[in-house]
């Protein structure tokens, strides 16, 4: 099996993913926010790190997600976007 270099790869957070219970979930509709810090990946403002937000480690996002009441189940990483699957 030889995946393309462009194929995203997955990392699972077993500590969280193995023991979740959705019994008390009751509200379907989600809240969605989208924050843009530049018009495109190729026009980041002076001072921003070359990879912009993608330089931020997962552990740093974890602190923010604690405030939201979400935990990271897994991360699908690719060159241009990291996709975090979250609890709740």
């Amino acid at each position: 099996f030889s995946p393309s270099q462009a194929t995203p790869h997955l990392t699972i957070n077993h500590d969280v993913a193995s023991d979740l219970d959705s019994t008390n979930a009751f509200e379907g509709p989600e809240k969605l926010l989208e924050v843009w810090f530049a018009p495109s990946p190729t026009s980041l403002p002076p001072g921003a790190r070359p990879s912009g937000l993608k330089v931020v480690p997962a552990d740093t996002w974890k602190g923010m997600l604690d405030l939201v009441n979400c935990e990271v189940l897994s991360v699908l990483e690719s060159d241009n976007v990291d996709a975090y699957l979250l609890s709740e």
Partner: protein
Amino acid sequence: SSMFVFPHKIILKTCGTTTLLLGLQRLLHIAAVDAGFPFHNAKSVTEIKAAATPYRFFYSRKNFLFPDKQRGPHRSWKQEVKFLDDIFEGGSAYMVGKMNGDHWYLYLTAPSFALTPPRTPDEEIPEVLTDVTRVTKIPAGTTTFVPSSSEDVNDETLEILMTDLDPENAKQFYLSHASAVASEKDAAPSQNDAATSDSDLGETVDVFSNGCESDLHDHAKAGSEAPTTTEGHALGTVVSENSGLSSIYPNSVYPDARIDAYMFSPCGFSANGVVPAPKRAKEGGENNGAATSSAAHYFTVHVTPEPNCSFASFETNVPGEPTGRSTSEIIEHVVNIFKPGRFSVTLFEGSGKGENALNHDENWASNRRKHLTRRIDPVRGYRRVERIVHEFDDYDLVFRFYERE
């Protein structure tokens, strides 16, 4: 819930009674401190000094089923808007759809060029200008332009929010049903099933929290240690394939697309998909060309199957025609998976008007509206009961609401 982190933007979509907006100030702080985006001392953030100033901001949601049970500022739209107004200057809040029915809320800010100004051309102008899509005249002596990027110009987001799911279709998002399907597959593996199992269930691994990360590339090379997955992820993959979600963007058309799916216990389902764009050569520019040049795309699915609050959402920014599947094909595919009693479609698309908006006449606007509404054809088996088009500064929004016939 899901989060997508791009170099220049972040998307966070959270379910249930999460407190999404309570993470916003920390998010802005991280963007400033860790990613180096320009910041100011936000007047409403006393304990967090540095908060990045966003280029633009969107917040949206459908009306909640149980608003009184929400927490923080999420109990009402009014509280959410006040929360956001305290952070952003000049934000605009909208309610789209029937007040006494299913409606959709949106808060957004206009693009700000204060901290990410359009670049001033330099000696490379002739070459770059071939790629310019919008040119704005400003006082003699200088020319300001916004360089094209596929994401800036063609940015589009399609969201389908479905309620009152068909009970038979909703069953497949229960753990017990998914386990039964997985057992059947194990009992009678076909050649295709075996391939699926090897490539999709067995390739993912590893511990997130202790930093011992590796990936499928490592395992492919090592060819030894047996990879492991949690049951939620393994069953999520089964559900993703069995329900038809994984064929929305099939590997035959999108070879590098990948789905990360999770089946909750006793029910509920979430999935993220990443659809990488072909790599292009490094582009020049003020960021030393280090940022990757091609836009990547995503899609995400969340399902709450219980009959008293059944709901499913699908969101994507994978471009439609001419390079991909048409928007109406995607809508029909998704709706057939869940067969909802009611659903809304929102299509948010960059209009390309930019700073030249005032130069466009009514004909242009009319043609544009026709183009957008054509993208969402009638959906078989459903009656359209709402059709609304909003034109914002440089985005257009089409909202449609359907009920089962």
